[in-house]
């Protein structure tokens, strides 16, 4: 417990210490705090990045010899892959000032559609897999259509569809687990995301000895997550559609007046989020080796946690994909680090709760600059 208390205290101290270095770049004239606020407004990802760094430092000290090893850090990356993917989907929706409570349910439904169709019903995996992607996208589009056509708050819509997708999962899966061995026998493609990559050994076999890579183990799922992050980042920052997403989230009325079709943008956002959930489903199958219809119960809220800690504003229009990935990493680092320090799970939950509140407080504070 004392570890935890000092952990968050250190985190806060660090937040205050961070800007000092930043302010040094300019002449230290009036409004030090104001400057910090401005800097954070401009680079919102800097806070999660600092928190992540602090977390790594704290747990390197708290769990000596255990936390800071290539293998353990590799494991943390593997552990956050799924929540990062769901977080990316969630970020898209939250940027439009919406929220999607159904992301976890869509993901599990897609694991069941992919796995059960291929393994139990014997459909070729090259049909079952795209079918899963299609179902995910369709779920997202349904969310988007209800939000835009019936003009209902996304919170309520996705609360409803969370329940509906969950029920469809039970119906289609019959609550039956698909074992890793059965999956391996009939649809090994779905497990591809769990395949390990050992960069040191791979490069060594090509005659390249890179010692800093020794001990690192990645999965194709993590690479996939990074690829999705890059693509979505590109779409958001470099395309007209991306601008529309920010505009709709920032001020839907101005966006409409500027000639943006807000409904079409929203439906596309929810649909894309659904597709990413289906990609997360693939990563999920890789991680557990098979399909477990009861798994992933906390994934919805975990994804929102990653987004919020990553600095994306719940009020829409401001945030970033990289922030979300870092947000997921922060949660992963804290959970893993606290576990390695020998703390019970309840203190992990406690710490994550503190992180959420701190993150939202900082967001509110930064928002004041535009007020």
């Amino acid at each position, binding site marked *: 417990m004392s570890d935890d208390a000092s952990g968050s205290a250190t985190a806060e101290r660090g937040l205050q210490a961070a800007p000092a270095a930043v302010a040094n770049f300019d002449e230290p004239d009036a409004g030090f705090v104001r400057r910090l606020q401005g800097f954070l407004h401009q680079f919102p990802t800097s806070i999660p990045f600092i928190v992540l760094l602090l977390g790594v430092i704290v747990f390197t000290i708290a769990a000596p010899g*255990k936390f800071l090893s290539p293998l353990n850090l590799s494991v943390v990356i593997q552990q956050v892959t799924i929540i990062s993917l769901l977080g990316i989907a969630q970020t898209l929706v939250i940027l439009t000032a919406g929220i999607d409570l159904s992301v976890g349910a869509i993901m599990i439904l897609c694991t069941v559609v992919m796995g059960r169709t291929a393994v139990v019903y014997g459909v070729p995996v090259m049909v079952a897999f795209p079918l899963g992607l299609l179902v995910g996208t369709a779920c997202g589009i349904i969310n988007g259509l209800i939000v835009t056509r*019936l003009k209902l708050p996304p919170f309520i819509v996705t609360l409803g569809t969370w329940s509906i997708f969950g029920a469809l999962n039970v119906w289609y899966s019959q609550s039956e687990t698909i074992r890793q061995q059965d999956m391996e026998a009939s649809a090994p493609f779905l497990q591809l995301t769990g395949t*390990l990559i050992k960069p040191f050994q791979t490069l060594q076999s090509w005659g390249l000895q890179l010692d800093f890579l020794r001990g690192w183990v990645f999965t194709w799922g993590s690479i996939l997550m990074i690829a999705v992050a890059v693509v979505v980042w590109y779409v958001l920052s470099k395309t007209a559609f991306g601008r529309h997403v920010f505009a709709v989230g920032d001020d839907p009325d101005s966006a409409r007046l500027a000639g943006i079709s807000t409904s079409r943008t929203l439906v596309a956002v929810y649909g894309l989020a659904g597709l990413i959930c289906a990609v997360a489903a693939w990563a999920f199958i890789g*991680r557990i080796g098979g399909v477990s219809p*009861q*798994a992933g*119960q906390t994934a919805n809220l975990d994804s929102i946690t990653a987004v919020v800690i990553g600095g994306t504003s719940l009020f829409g229009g401001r945030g970033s994909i990289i922030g979300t990935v870092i947000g997921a990493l922060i949660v992963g680092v804290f959970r893993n680090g606290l576990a*390695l320090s020998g703390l*019970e799970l309840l203190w992990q939950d406690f710490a994550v709760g503190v992180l959420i509140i701190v993150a939202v407080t900082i967001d509110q504070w930064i928002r004041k600059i535009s007020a």
Partner: protein
Amino acid sequence: MGFSFLKTALAGAVILGSMAATAVMAQDVTVGLITKTETNPFFVKMREGAEAKAKELGVKLIACAGKFDGDNDGQVACIENQISAGSKGFAIVPSDSKAIVPTIAKARAAGLKVIVLDTPLDPMDAADATFATDNRKAGNLIGSWAAKTMGDKAKDASIVLLDLATNQPTVDYLRDQGFMAGFGIDVKDPNKYGDEDDKRICDHEISQGDQEKGRTAMENALTKCPNVNLVYTINEPAAAGAWEALKAVGKDDGSVMIVSVDGGCPGVKNVQAGVIGATSQQYPLKMASMALDAIVSGKIPDIDPKMGFLDTGAQLVTAKPADGVPSISVDEGLKLCWG
């Protein structure tokens, strides 16, 4: 807008209406089954067992469940529905074995027979009867099997325990402590884990009985206990998750033994595949059908007062029987498995 809203509302009403219509096929006697959730295969099979039995007895079954494990309010609503439906009685797997007691008292006062399944109430005599797996015995079986199978190596074992939840629900500590006692560990307080000082216990982690969280828990445990050679798991999904973590670091070579409890079909197949060394199998269908028999006939079977509940049995399923530990074969386990 208004029109499309009306259409949606109408469509919704039609769907719900037709669902209700299929549910209300009146038969004279109704009985209930209330489970913790409706998604866990253990409860799904329990419901299937109850449905088959209800059909055989010619009574109508109303099944109901909480929304999540631990959802007491949801189960209170389920019981209230049973009372208003005029059920003869119901079987319930309580999510909160203390908090549900007053509502059960209300139902019994209204003349309903109440049989508790799987998780005894606290106090146990708050129900008409309890049919359950002896979870301590189930844990004990896998503990003694592991000790016998490891032989001399048992005294240098490095053990990781993947438990259920931090608040240590009854089933959690019963299985955990049963396993420890069976393995030959001094459990100190038999109703609580974590207070032992045996050096062989390397780590406790929480798996929430979830396959993905089981993997995460095992990954964290591996960093703390690189030499682990025995893993206890609260259930078979957690065991399957632990196996994935072990496989990722090349420890799927037989150097680590996993034991579990449940006896679901995927779990028994994992025993067959050598993923799980041994598992204690329990019998949810039997629990449910016995309960329905007792409610409909009004005859409660004799219960050993020392136990306080009717043990529906737990059998060890393993491909490698150990001397002095009764077990059944994988083939027998597959015949009796659920889920």
